[in-house]
């Protein structure tokens, strides 16, 4: 019986260590999440302002219609930008997103639409390596503070394909930050833009150097900022999800230690009782 209690003691020690680690990870994630949330808030003004400018452009009577605002009749190929986290241990964050995107991938397959994937984050890379798919661009190891410079290349690959007519629509899959405890996986169409055309007005911009260059830059900045915004948001989601996952793990470890302590005490008591009864039996035999 003594052997049994020794094993339990070792187990308690190991679970206690695990609990310490998960507790530490929870606190790290909580503090990182606050910073990630602040970064997320900081990116919002830019996206809002670009959207405002684009809605002005949509309201204008431009001499030049940008291809990003034109819906194409036949969609033969689509681009999907998949935003995931670099690291695991963040609950179902990534798998929920993949589960959300898979039905769309299936549907496209049934319709004979080819999908080109641009992957952001290690987890998407790992997932599509085993799932298969036509990956045209990938970027990972963005760290806790993603920079727009790191994403520009990947976005450019996708937009260049759109410009060349190789893909007809671009979608973005990422997690939406609802609150610290909830993340909402979403897939949205980002190109072509669904611009509300209210063309009662009859003005147009003065462009420098010309309409095409200026609008082209604006549209690219728009797509970049939307993708960058979702990467930053996803980073906040990641920390939130990790915090929750680690909190659950810490709680579970606590429960486990409690149960193990109970059975350890039971084993200890049983050993004492047995020893006593052996002594009593021994003395009465004399």
């Amino acid at each position, binding site marked *: 019986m003594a052997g049994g209690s020794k094993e339990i003691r070792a187990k308690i020690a190991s679970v206690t260590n695990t609990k310490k680690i998960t507790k530490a990870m929870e606190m790290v994630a909580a503090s990182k999440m606050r910073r990630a949330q602040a970064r997320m808030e900081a990116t919002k003004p830019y996206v809002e302002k670009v959207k405002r*400018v684009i809605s002005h452009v949509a309201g*204008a009577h431009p001499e030049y219609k940008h291809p990003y605002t034109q819906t194409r009749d036949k969609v033969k190929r689509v681009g999907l930008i998949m935003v995931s986290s670099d690291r695991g241990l963040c609950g179902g964050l990534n798998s929920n997103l993949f589960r959300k995107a898979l039905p769309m991938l299936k549907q496209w397959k049934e319709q004979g639409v080819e999908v080109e994937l641009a992957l952001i984050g290690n987890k998407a890379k790992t997932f599509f390596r085993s799932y298969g798919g036509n990956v045209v661009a990938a970027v990972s190891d963005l760290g806790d503070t993603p920079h727009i410079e790191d994403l520009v290349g990947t976005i450019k690959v996708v937009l260049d394909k759109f410009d060349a007519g190789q893909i007809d629509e671009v979608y973005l899959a990422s997690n939406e930050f609802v609150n610290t405890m909830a993340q909402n996986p979403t897939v949205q169409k980002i190109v072509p833009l669904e611009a509300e055309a209210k063309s009662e007005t009859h003005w147009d911009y003065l*462009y*420098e*150097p010309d309409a095409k*260059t200026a609008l082209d830059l*604006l549209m690219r900045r728009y797509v970049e900022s939307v993708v960058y915004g979702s990467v930053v948001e996803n980073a906040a989601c990641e920390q939130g999800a990790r915090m929750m996952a680690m909190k659950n793990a810490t709680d579970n470890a606590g429960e486990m230690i409690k149960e193990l302590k109970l059975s350890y005490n039971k084993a200890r008591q049983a050993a004492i009782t047995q020893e006593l009864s052996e002594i009593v039996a021994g003395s009465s035999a004399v």
Partner: protein
Amino acid sequence: MAVTMQVDIVSAEGQIFSGKAEMLFAQAADGEVGILPHHTQFLSRLKPGTVRVVSGDEEQHFYVNSGIIEIQPSMVTVLADSAIRAADLDEAEAQAAKQRAEEAMANAKSETDIARAQVELAEAVAQIQSISKLRDRLHKTGLA
């Protein structure tokens, strides 16, 4: 009360300025522009340089690497690729960047290297100009 317009300067990584202004200067694609309220709609690429926002006696300088400026009669939106307050710029840093760019240009191997070096050089020159303008102004006002 002077006529004012709403000015918003934002970069992808955060808001830089938001407020009312009487006049704004920026480096548009075809040269410097000065914007007063009720300007016609205008959309341009921004060159590396300073965006000056005038409101009352106050004039604020913002260094912009590149970006987009959109003008509506009642508001101006500057979408900066990356912008920092001109006063925060370190002249030594700018000089070093210029030197690096020049060095890179001297022994540039491929066309992309040259292009990158030219962009860096243009940015460094614009930063230095922005700083010296700011310094002149500070001298005049007797702050420096």
